């Protein structure tokens, strides 16, 4: 491969990594907001959060990406750069999956812990911050690690919109070289390496957090 094509691939990797970081950040924020809302006292809050989860988990990620790219901007008069449109679509979709992890994690904490917090006179916000989340978060890491790999694979979907991520630049290189097997094998290997590194980082984080709880 010529240096120009390598540059294209490196650019693709960079775009994929950026998209992954941004949508993971948005996804995590959505996961916690919606997941905590799903355990709220008020039924209307629980209902709305549940509705959100069902809608975003029910449809296909690619359909959501099309929706965010083509329906939202004209409807609200927005000008979305592809990176932000991709981040929004992926963050909102994968945040719906993550919210179930957060909800499950919170519900798995021993009810006596919550009662203990009430007995000590903690407000509900304090109970969440000081008692529930520190115990629940380490347990959430393994499923979040899986979700992160799913999100990484999901980033390839934006290539359908012509965004210059790794999958997209793989296609360009294939067209330039008229050679498919080798190019796609490289692209798949790069995804695999990123997924491998992600799971390692998450395992490290899990050990770190668990050590903190003990």
């Amino acid at each position: 491969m010529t240096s120009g094509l390598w540059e294209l691939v490196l650019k693709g990797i960079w775009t994929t990594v950026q998209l992954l970081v941004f949508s993971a950040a948005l996804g995590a924020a959505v996961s916690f907001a919606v997941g905590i809302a799903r355990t709220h006292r008020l039924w209307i809050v629980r209902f709305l959060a549940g509705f959100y989860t069902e809608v975003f988990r029910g449809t296909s990620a690619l359909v959501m990406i099309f929706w965010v790219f083509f329906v939202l901007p004209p409807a609200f008069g927005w000008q979305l750069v592809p990176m932000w449109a991709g981040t929004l679509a992926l963050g909102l979709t994968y945040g719906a999956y993550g919210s179930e992890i957060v909800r499950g994690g919170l519900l798995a904490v021993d009810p006596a812990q919550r009662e203990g917090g009430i007995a000590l006179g903690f407000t509900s916000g304090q109970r969440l911050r000081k008692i529930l989340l520190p115990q629940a978060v380490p347990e959430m890491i393994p499923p979040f690690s899986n979700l992160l790999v799913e999100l990484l694979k999901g980033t390839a979907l934006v290539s359908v919109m012509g965004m210059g991520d790794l999958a997209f630049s793989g296609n360009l290189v294939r067209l330039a070289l008229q050679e498919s097997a080798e190019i796609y094998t490289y692209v798949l290997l790069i995804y695999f390496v990123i997924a491998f590194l992600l799971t390692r980082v998450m395992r490290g984080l899990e050990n770190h957090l668990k050590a903190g709880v003990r």
Partner: protein
Amino acid sequence: MNWDWNAVRDFMPLFREGLLVTLQALVLGSLISFTLGLVWALLMRTPTRWVQWPVGIVTEFVRDTPLLVQLFFLFYVLPEWGLTLSAMATGVLAIGLHYSTYTMQVYRAGIEAVPAGQWEAATALNLSKARTWRAVILPQAVRRVVPALGNYVISMLKDTPLLMAITVLEMLGRARLFSQEHFRFTEPLTVIGVAFIVISALASFLLRTLERRLVR
């Protein structure tokens, strides 16, 4: 947001055709993933390391890389290798192959959940290895894995729009076709979004019913 019911009406014939393709891809992809997944799971249980290792590495690789790139791989590489399949066949194969690496894990867990006493009883009855699997282990394991397999059917449904990228005109592909002709995105995309929600809700309901039947 301007919503035009006429556009919805005009989109309906295309939508029905797309739905049919989506459901076909789903059924065929599911069948491949259920069969191949069981094959991987059984291969992983062979005592030979030389079989376990490659199967383990390949399935891990397939599971952790994007289905979209795998679709491109098969679509562009198979003809280079002298195997020309239709876009639909390639898509179904890719979905089946990708999800077989997930169903493999489900089968493995199901097989491991069969109590050890069942194996011992089969040995005590002097059943052959094949008979043990066919008559004792698999019927119990499969019953346990149905709900988890069902979840993957729903995941596969949500991945069928990817086939659009290799020219298969399923629901999203038809929606895009309609949008390009009529310059209307909102209606077709919303219609298929709702269709996905309805089909996955229906599928979850059927699964729960099936689960109750199997448990009884």
